[in-house]
């Protein structure tokens, strides 16, 4: 009996499922046709007739737009009977329970959406994969660096992400269908939630980041995950892995990144919750809600609040940002918020209520939202919880985690790769005190900057004096000359350069201090500040033993690896390959010297550079500069690997450590081994300095200054002080041909000469502008080597 009953239920469920698919075959056909044109047919066409534009796994904007549109259309079609009184009469009087009725239609919609997508995109992936495999066999073709299986897998992973996003959007759309009485309301709700929620999240993030000094910002990961709860579409635009938005990057997915997994996790959870919620609501849904504007008022209330708050905050922040005066800024914020939020609230109300019906009652909700936000705004502004002024005591702190971009610039070795922020734990009492002193200095400086009790957030303004506070020429004239800049008496580059205070660093740095308190709670603050203003506090930090040893990767070397050292005396084009024994002794000597070096020592011009290289890392590099990432199991661009991951290999592939004049241990060792002086130029050294690279003369790295100088504007530098300054510049030489600047070559008294240095424009020394650039005579060149 039971089985017959169950069989009958299944029979009706199946019939309803197939009937729904059959009813929507036309739309499914159009959808499939569009997918066919966008995916495999396009790929085949490009492959056969336009292989130059052939792209690998091209899931792009158009390719996503179609499934997104149908992802919304299918639920609207499948469940539209809920918005029609007559159709509801039919469906709800049928001999089928609500649960199977809902599920049969839900599954039918999913089938219509995903079967064509998965089949067609899979076919496209296979076509792409096969074509790609073909290209991989062509020597020199860029794709030869990739592993076929990895790329094929990546293609399917991208597809999987899209499938989960669509699934979530589908589930959310169905949920909205269950919670609305009319299709117009459903569409308005869907748009308002998807757009309004994203806007609100962005606005709140910006609001809190801007209002609170020291607020480290809500992690973009968290924001992204919270955003996609109500706006799964946003997942396609946010970053996945270490890359830009899914659409922005044309679909690169780092499948092993936690982001990808957690994205999928959030999408699955939201989809499941939306499905469960939809089913629950559908089972309780009153048939009489069909076609009614005022069904499910809570959903409309939610939409109104989301829209009015997001619009209000965005407009308010826009209006207030132009004011530096607190009173004006707050007035603008309040007026902007009230006006924009009210108008947007009214518009949404008129749409959802088809007029001004129940407006009076609805305004209570608006008032409540405004009051709540006002409490937050003024609460944050007056810092009622003391967030901005709080600085912990050293004895309450277990350890401090410090992340900063260049906060220890002077002690950092020059790295051959993109500078990655360090994340170091400080546990020593002295270290804690030094960082807390910096924190206190930052808080005190903020207080000085306030013109009222209301803390006006200026997240875009650094703490401390600005560069221009020390510089007389304003922002228009930087101390570097502009290209082809006419020279005026009052603003000539030399004068500007000279006006810059000596030994002043103008770096505007960020620092994130995460206190791990003894009570187990973390406390994080992030600041953007000017180095010069806080030079005293920074000096204390720089002199810390713990800072020196933990900040510098030299002290974190994995000596079990094969490390080779190259010693460069760049100003003379000298290089020396150290053997294993010398490398070890060099590392020890440098560690000793760095440990005792003061900031003044590190401000000297370096006399040599030691490049330490991990052979193991080098072995993993392929000829195009990609290295095999064991963890990610694929070749990756070297620059895309975060420093934190590189750390797992002991040292980065290559790091350059300067040797400063005060490094007695290192210099003694080098001089002993190489029988050369590393402290100064040989007497009589001269430098040929030539002005900006002249277009047409450039011929890659093979440019021969000795032969081509006649076509350039050059001058000769022989003053030891100027040479010393040039040495500092040439140490930091860069081989970027796009860099506008100058180049130089040293000529030694013994007739030898250095390599050619191409120098950055912003490394130009002040005396550069007083040089007499001209076409040199051959006789002048001949004096160079004498």
């Amino acid at each position, binding site marked *: 009996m039971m089985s017959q009953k169950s069989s009958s239920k299944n029979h009706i469920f199946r019939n309803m499922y197939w009937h729904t698919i059959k009813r929507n075959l036309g739309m499914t056909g159009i959808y499939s046709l569009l997918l066919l044109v966008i995916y495999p047919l396009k790929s085949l066409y490009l492959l056969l007739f336009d292989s130059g534009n052939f792209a690998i796994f091209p899931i792009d904007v158009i390719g996503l737009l179609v499934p997104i549109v149908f992802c919304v259309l299918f639920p609207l079609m499948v469940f539209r009977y809920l918005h029609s009184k007559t159709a509801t009469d039919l469906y709800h*009087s049928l001999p089928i329970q609500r649960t199977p009725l809902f599920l049969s239609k839900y599954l039918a919609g999913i089938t219509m959406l995903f079967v064509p997508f998965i089949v067609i995109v899979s076919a496209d992936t296979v076509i792409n994969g096969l074509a790609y495999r073909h290209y991989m066999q062509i020597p020199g073709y860029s794709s030869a660096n990739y592993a076929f299986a990895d790329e094929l897998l990546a293609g399917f992973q991208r597809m999987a992400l899209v499938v989960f996003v669509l699934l979530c959007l589908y589930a959310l759309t169905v949920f909205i269908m269950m919670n609305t009485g009319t299709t117009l309301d459903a569409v308005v709700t869907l748009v308002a939630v998807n757009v309004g929620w994203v806007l609100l999240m962005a606005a709140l993030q910006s609001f809190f980041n801007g209002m609170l000094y020291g607020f480290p910002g809500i992690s973009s990961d968290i924001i992204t995950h919270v955003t996609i709860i109500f706006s799964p579409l946003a997942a396609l635009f946010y970053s996945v892995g270490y890359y830009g938005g899914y659409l922005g990057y044309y679909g690169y997915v780092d499948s092993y990144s936690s982001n990808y997994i957690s994205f999928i996790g959030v999408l699955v959870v939201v989809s499941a919750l939306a499905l469960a919620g939809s089913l629950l609501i559908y089972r309780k849904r009153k048939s009489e809600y069909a076609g009614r504007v005022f069904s499910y008022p809570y959903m409309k209330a939610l939409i109104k609040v989301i829209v009015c708050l997001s619009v209000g905050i965005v407009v308010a922040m826009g209006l207030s940002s132009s004011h530096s005066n607190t009173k004006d800024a707050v007035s603008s914020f309040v007026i902007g918020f009230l006006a924009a939020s009210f108008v947007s609230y009214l518009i949404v109300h008129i749409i959802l209520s088809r007029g001004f019906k129940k407006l009076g009652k609805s305004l209570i909700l608006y008032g409540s939202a405004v009051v709540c936000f006002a409490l937050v705004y003024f609460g944050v502004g007056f810092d009622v919880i003391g967030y901005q002024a709080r600085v912990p005591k050293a004895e309450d702190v277990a350890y401090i985690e410090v992340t900063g971009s260049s906060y220890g610039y002077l002690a950092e070795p020059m790295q051959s790769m993109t500078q990655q922020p360090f994340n170091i734990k400080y546990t020593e009492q002295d270290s804690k005190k030094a960082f807390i002193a910096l924190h206190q200095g930052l808080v005190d400086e903020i207080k000085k900057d306030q013109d009222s009790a209301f803390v006006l957030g200026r997240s875009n303004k650094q703490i401390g004096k600005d560069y221009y506070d020390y510089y007389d020429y304003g922002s228009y004239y930087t101390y570097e000359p502009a290209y082809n800049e006419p020279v005026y008496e009052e603003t000539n580059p030399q004068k500007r350069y000279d006006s810059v205070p000596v030994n002043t660093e103008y770096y505007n740095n960020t620092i994130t201090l995460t206190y791990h308190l003894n009570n187990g709670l973390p406390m994080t603050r992030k600041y953007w500040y000017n180095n010069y203003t806080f030079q005293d506090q920074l000096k204390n930090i720089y002199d810390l033993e713990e800072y020196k040893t933990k900040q510098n990767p030299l002290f974190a070397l994995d000596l079990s690896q094969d490390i080779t050292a190259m010693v460069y005396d760049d100003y003379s084009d000298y290089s020396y390959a150290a053997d294993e024994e010398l490398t070890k002794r060099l590392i020890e000597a440098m560690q000793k010297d760095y440990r005792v070096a003061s900031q003044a020592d590190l401000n000297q011009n370096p006399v040599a550079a030691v490049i330490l290289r991990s052979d193991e890392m080098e072995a993993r590099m392929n000829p195009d500069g990609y290295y095999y990432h064991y963890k990610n199991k694929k070749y990756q661009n070297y620059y895309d690997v975060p420093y934190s991951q590189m750390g797992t290999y002991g040292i980065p592939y290559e790091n350059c450590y300067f040797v400063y004049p005060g490094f007695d241990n290192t210099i003694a060792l080098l001089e002993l081994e190489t029988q050369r002086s590393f402290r100064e130029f040989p007497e009589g050294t001269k430098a040929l300095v030539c002005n900006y690279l002249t277009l047409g003369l450039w011929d890659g790295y093979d440019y021969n200054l000795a032969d081509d100088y006649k076509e350039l504007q050059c001058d000769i530098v022989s003053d030891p002080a100027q040479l010393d300054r040039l040495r500092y510049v040439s140490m930091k030489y860069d081989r970027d041909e796009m860099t506008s600047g100058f180049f130089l070559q040293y000529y030694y008294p013994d007739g030898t000469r250095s390599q050619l240095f191409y120098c950055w424009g912003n490394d130009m020394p002040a005396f550069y502008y007083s040089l007499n650039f001209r076409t040199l005579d051959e006789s002048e060149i001949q004096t160079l080597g004498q």
Partner: protein
Amino acid sequence: MICAINLQKRFDKFSALDNVNVEIPSGCVYGLVGTNGSGKSTFLRLLAGVYYPNEGLITLDGESIYDNAKIKTGIFFLPDTPFYFHQGTVRKMADFYKLIYQNFDVEIYRKMLTIFPIDPKAPIASMSKGMQRQAALILAFACRPRLLLLDEAFDGLDPFIRKSLKSLISESVAEYGMTVMIASHNLRELEDLCDHVGLIHQGHFLLNSDIDDLKGNIQSVQIVLDKPAEDVAAAAGLELLHVNQMQGSMQNWIIRGDRDEVLERLNAFSPKYLEAVAPTLEEIFIWTTEVPEYDVSKIIL
């Protein structure tokens, strides 16, 4: 047996049905009469399992109807505005119902197509209102329900089709034991078809009874007597409901009671003329539901 116990249905603050308690026997043709907005359609939707009552219970053969697929297999609800699929034809709709209603009878479907002259391949949306209703009736009967709920079933039907429909309903009741509930605001339409009738007004059932019982209990007599009606009725122990002065001294008395007994008691007063005439359903409605707050003559047509 349909049974409503303390049934309430509200739409926001509006109470469409209020504390309804009725029992309707199976196998009858039940006419549900009431003005627009009286609660007829709501009652039908509750019976069809479309609506869920706010309070109370409505059952068919002792089982709750809402979300009960088993019981709903035997119920077909034909609303006043039936829904058809986009580009739907009678054949396509029949295919749909065939999938859902296990009792769908193809033979009946074909027979119905001979009774109602409808092209099964023509889009229903392009048909006239009357034809659309015929299309709906074809499908309704083909599903062979135990309980057929018809809301304003005769709307838009020409006299010939109305007659056919009435015959069809009678046949179905006789042949399959089908229960038919027809909601209408037109009492005269139902008079010759229903054997049970209910009068609903402002969410309340004013009347729910077998028509024969009703007719047997209300007598309309034409009488010529030179004594006041009230005195005669009191003396005869009869409940006089209404007196209507006719031509001359002829009066029409509406009296509650058994026909023979009424005639016997009145004959004792030696009237000059006495004849019992069959009361119309309308008269019965008016005189049986007369309560102070209702003017029944205004709520039935």
